[in-house]
């Protein structure tokens, strides 16, 4: 029986509402229970608009759940989650700071001397393959390069938990593979707890230890929880040809399709919230 503290993130009956302009409330996420172990890489997959970003925002402490509680390493979260680094779905770099300043800022505001922070930032830029781009501004980078800067910006603070929201979403297939390999390489160094949102089942299987499937919203629920037992280290491009990968893909997809259809019929027939 694992004790409380072996969970990095624990969502306990978390439901989330949004106030709409017409005064009604929109119930985005129905009460959800989800725990992510320390050092565990969990992928969250679901149809668009089902509440994946919303769930991450709750784990980040940016959104207050309407009910239930969020626990981080056994402690109830009431403010920003200080143990987490968050790679956002949208562009979130500060456009007025250079790439190097963007990466260094997390250390600087925590009191690290500027020179040390700059050196560390340069090290991280080299690790994400952007060593020569420190002086540029974010607008002068490609989408994939910006995502890599974002990764360096988050990882330089060495968070215990990594929240990633479709980090490779807007990238082309080749770049996604390269980014996936880069992410696995960096992750394998200290195996942070990861919540990784994606709509790409292939990517989820290639990267994660466990895959969570969410139903279509509103009042989205968790409708599947699959362990991925493929051994590590993995090669994100190669592993897709592994027969076990395909078997797992089929198994999850069958369940996903059935459940999504079922979830769809449930909500389609239900009275509007």
């Amino acid at each position, binding site marked *: 029986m694992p004790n409380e503290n072996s969970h990095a993130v624990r969502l306990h009956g978390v439901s989330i509402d949004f106030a709409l302009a017409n005064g009604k409330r929109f119930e985005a996420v129905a009460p959800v229970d989800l725990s992510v172990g320390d050092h565990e890489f969990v992928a969250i997959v679901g149809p668009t608009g089902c509440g994946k970003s919303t769930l991450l925002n709750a784990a*980040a402490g940016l959104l207050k759940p309407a009910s239930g509680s969020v626990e981080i390493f056994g402690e109830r979260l009431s403010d920003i989650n200080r143990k987490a680094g968050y790679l956002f779905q949208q562009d*979130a770099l500060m456009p007025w700071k250079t790439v190097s300043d963007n990466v260094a800022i*997390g250390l600087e505001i925590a009191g690290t001397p500027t020179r040390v922070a700059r050196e560390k930032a340069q090290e991280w830029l080299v690790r994400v393959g952007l060593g020569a781009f420190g002086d540029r501004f974010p607008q002068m980078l490609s989408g994939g390069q910006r995502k890599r800067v974002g990764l360096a910006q988050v990882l330089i603070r060495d968070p215990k938990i990594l929240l990633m929201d479709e980090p490779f979403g807007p990238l082309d297939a080749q770049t996604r593979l390269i980014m996936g390999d880069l992410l696995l390489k960096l992750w394998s160094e200290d195996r942070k707890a990861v919540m990784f949102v994606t709509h790409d089942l292939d990517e989820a299987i290639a990267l994660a230890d466990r895959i969570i499937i969410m139903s279509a919203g509103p009042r989205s629920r968790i409708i599947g929880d699959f362990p991925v037992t493929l051994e590590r280290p993995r090669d994100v491009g190669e592993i897709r040809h592994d027969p076990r990968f395909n078997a797992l893909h089929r198994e999850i997809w069958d369940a996903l399709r059935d459940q999504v259809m079922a979830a769809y019929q449930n909500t389609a027939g239900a009275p509007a919230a």
Partner: protein
Amino acid sequence: MNRGLLISLQILVAVVTLVLWHIASSTTLFGDPKTISFFFADPISVIKRIWTWFSSGTIWYHLGITLTEAVLAFLIGAIGGVVFGFWFARKPLLAAVFDPYVKAANALPRVVLAPIFALWFGLGIWSKVALGVTLVFFIVFFNVYQGVKEVSQPVLNNARMLGMNERQLLRHIYLPSALSWVFSSLHTSVGFAVVGAVVGEYLGSAAGLGYLIHQAEGVFDVVGVFAGMFVLMAFVLVVDGLVSLVEKRLLAWRAS
């Protein structure tokens, strides 16, 4: 378009205008040259007048006064605009209460304020500075207000997740965002600082470009009026060029 060609064409426009003007005021092609040069002066005399101003050095004093007024108006208006813009953007209740008054104050034509400022601050430079401030302040104020309000939500959330407290958010997020709006309105606000200074001088003073033009008008010295206007135009072009240089440095991150 090729830069050299562009500048040549721009100079060509000036030359053609001058030549047409010269022909109109010295031949009978467009009517009586006497009448025309009475109303529009003639380019040779205007150029001669400008030349005298610069060679005798009298113009520098007036240019210096106008420049001082414009710079002071810009600095005071901009700093005031930044401070109040920030304050209002961070205090929605304050902004809501004062909204109609801010709009009403901004709708006031500044010319009607000139006599009041002359009464309050005298006929020296400060009444002109005050006039410029009332113009610059509102431009900067609205831009800062907008800049703080429109900070991108993901950038703000990211900064909070990176560990910034309120003070650090102000320094690293709100201020740069607001300033980028201020800088992008730099041409307008600097232009208005000059307008404020010149209009103030025009309506009552003893020095500056506006004074020069007003003096000439007072004695129907059309050549003087046109010479004053051309110096003013050149002055504005130079100031605008300097602003472009500053802008290029400050907004380097906004790659096209």
